[in-house]
């Protein structure tokens, strides 16, 4: 009834190609924005920020980044954890070298440095594809983790190889370190998420995104119609690594506060983010968010229900979590192989036709 095009007239091309063509969607989007920016910061506490909101937002950025590379440009990558580590260590070095500079600058620069590293490791993609490229990026993952373990300069020669985020500010507001307020952490991450998601959305529906998708769908055909594969693949690696680098920088400085490369940015992180985009939906902005939400919030939710609510032993609950989350992944993928985003898309299609679906 409410969810339909009828009566929503477009009078310009701009309006016709907007992200949310339906009025209901637009209202939903602005409601989410208002709640996220104007309501949540006033009610959020330490638990909600550190255990739920901040990890969700950061993983959403990482999933967006990998989705650009894998979902839009079709280049499989298993090096996400390694690229997050580049972002984290770049951020750490910048934070300790230039303490007076704003964290906003550090995080963006960390993303830039990761973009350069990503382009370097993206070079093999010009010659190899598919599984072979996955192996090349896997090598990047192991090489980067080894590098940050091996060279003490990266962790400022600390005895344990740990990096610790010192207290840094944005416009005088503390955003890293132990004295950070919950709302500051949350808002800092939220601003990055909104800006980056906006960039991702507009890149992917513009010329750059169409080139990526052309390469993904058939690279020879793309070349024939005039897409330069070198530029398309390398820009995909650069933009993707920029996103992933920012996620890594935030993951270390805002969320964890202290990290060691093997534990925080190991191969399991690459897999986790790959699972996020597969479950969420390849080649979908909404899918990146849905996948991140599923993989981050589900375990926390289950833990709270099983241990906090039902009072089960913690080890039993932890094992059950694996079973339930694993089972749900299988069920979701059987029901909809294209991920939660496709499920959402179908729901919207059905709603448009309601009450006469076919």
């Amino acid at each position, binding site marked *: 009834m409410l969810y339909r095009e009828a009566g929503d007239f477009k009078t310009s091309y701009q309006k016709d190609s907007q992200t949310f063509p339906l009025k209901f969607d637009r209202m939903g989007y602005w409601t989410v924005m208002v709640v996220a920016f104007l309501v949540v910061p006033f009610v959020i506490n*330490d*638990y909600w920020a*550190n*255990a*739920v909101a901040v*990890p969700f937002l950061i993983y959403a950025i990482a999933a967006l980044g990998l989705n650009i590379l894998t979902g839009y440009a079709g280049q499989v990558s298993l090096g996400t954890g390694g690229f997050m580590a580049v972002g984290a260590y770049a951020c750490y070095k910048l934070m*300790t070298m230039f303490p007076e500079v704003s964290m906003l600058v550090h995080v963006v620069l960390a993303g830039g440095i990761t973009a350069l590293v990503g382009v370097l490791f993206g070079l093999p993609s010009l010659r190899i594809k598919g599984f072979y490229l996955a192996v090349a990026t896997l090598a990047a993952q192991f090489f980067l983790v080894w590098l940050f*373990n091996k060279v003490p300069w990266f962790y400022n020669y*600390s*005895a*344990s*190889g*740990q990096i*610790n985020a*010192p*207290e840094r500010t944005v416009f005088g507001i503390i955003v890293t*370190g*132990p*004295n950070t307020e919950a709302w500051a952490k949350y808002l800092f991450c939220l601003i990055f998420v909104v800006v980056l998601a906006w960039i991702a959305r507009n890149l992917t529906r513009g010329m750059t995104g169409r080139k990526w998708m052309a390469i993904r769908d058939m690279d020879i055909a793309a070349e024939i119609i005039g897409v330069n594969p070198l530029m398309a693949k390398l820009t995909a690696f650069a933009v993707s690594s920029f996103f992933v680098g920012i996620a890594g920088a935030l993951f270390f400085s805002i*969320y*964890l*506060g*202290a*990290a*060691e490369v*093997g*534990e*925080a940015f*190991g191969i399991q992180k690459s897999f986790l983010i790959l699972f996020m985009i597969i479950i969420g939906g390849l080649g979908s902005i909404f899918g990146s968010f*849905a996948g991140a*939400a*599923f993989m981050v*919030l*589900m375990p*926390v*939710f289950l*833990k*709270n*229900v099983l*241990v*906090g*609510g039902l009072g089960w*032993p*913690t*080890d039993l*609950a*932890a*094992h059950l979590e694996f079973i339930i989350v694993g089972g749900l992944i299988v069920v979701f993928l059987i029901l909809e192989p294209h991920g939660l985003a496709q499920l*959402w898309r179908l729901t919207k299609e059905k709603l448009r036709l309601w009450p006469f679906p076919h």
Partner: protein
Amino acid sequence: MNMKKIAAASVAALMVGTPVLADLVFPSLSYRTGPYAAGGIPYADGYSDYFTLLNERDGGIGGAAIQVIECETGYNTEKGVECYESTKGQGALVYNPLSTGITYQLIPKATADNIPLYTPGYGRTSAANGKVFSHVFNFPANYWNAASLAVNHLLAENGGDLNGKSVALVYHNSAYGKEPIRTLEGLAEKHGFKLTAIPVDHPGQEQKSQWLQIRREKPDYVLMWGWGVMNQVAIQEAANIRFPMENFVGVWWSGGDHDVAPAGESATGYKAVTFHAVGSDFPVFDDIQKHVVETGKAAGAGDNIGKAIYNRGVYAAMLMAEAVSKAQEIHGTPDITAAMMRDGMEALEITDARMAELGMGGFGPAFSVSCENHGGPGTGAIQQWDGAAGTWSLISEFGGSDMDVIQPLIDADSAAYAAENNIEAGCN
């Protein structure tokens, strides 16, 4: 999106609905799952069983009942953050996460929240300097003491001279495993032995190449900084290449019964450093058997009593209970807060007479904590495994470590932390 809303609503309902039941809350950030569970389970059992014993036998501490809240971390720092945030609002007195990685994360957080951290024999070694680390305690001994104690044992075996010997360090490639390297380098320089550091990546199930390297280089001694499944694999691999077990010394976290048992009799002779006594020959364990296990209130299956890591959990809980008594005495109230707990820990004094009274006479050293020294005496002994009998036995007296090497390192590392975080060192 719908899923998320349901989740959010239920979590919110659960968080509001969890009341604070008892007066003294001890969160136990345990791990009973994953590759490190072999060590995490007995420790968590020991930690929780001792508090249950106090509740059952003495009615708590100073009349206040104790509540232990378990939270599963899986030795994972992200889950550690979640556990810390979810338990700190429930009146947590002290955190004992049994993970060096999580400790590194919690040091600034807990200090800002005014909650003490207790990291016996693990964590950040330089936290022994209480002038910088006001809320972190790692008495009675730390990693650098362990490194020195192991080298002292090698010195004793060689008549005080290690010149020209070679020592390999097999370590978990994480903050935990890297901690002793600096001290061992200092000691290698002082005593003239050659140190080779061989990293093993998480989780440590694959060590063929490391032990091949050891077989090729034939070091005189192997030291190990391992945890979880890595220990069992290393000891099995050492047995496979027929490395003489009496030349293989582990840190205390590589000295659990479950670490050596899988290798069977071939593990006989393996040594480990320890900062407390071994075995179940102490009255406190009879009390735990009687009041906790037999009444069905044990945290685990009750079959770990007297095992090395379980004993360490009991020992840690005992020291914390004593710190609570001290805090109650200082502040004159049974309902202490985390800030009072910190005062109690800093004023803690353990005497041999008190240990005997608690049924743990001679189990650990007598010591007192001060603001300058949060690290305790740093004493320890060497335990050796007997595969046939399935028991550890102490083969040396409890001795001190080489503080001439360790103290400058503690001062340097804590000064670096203070400079990085703008902390003004000092006691108040």
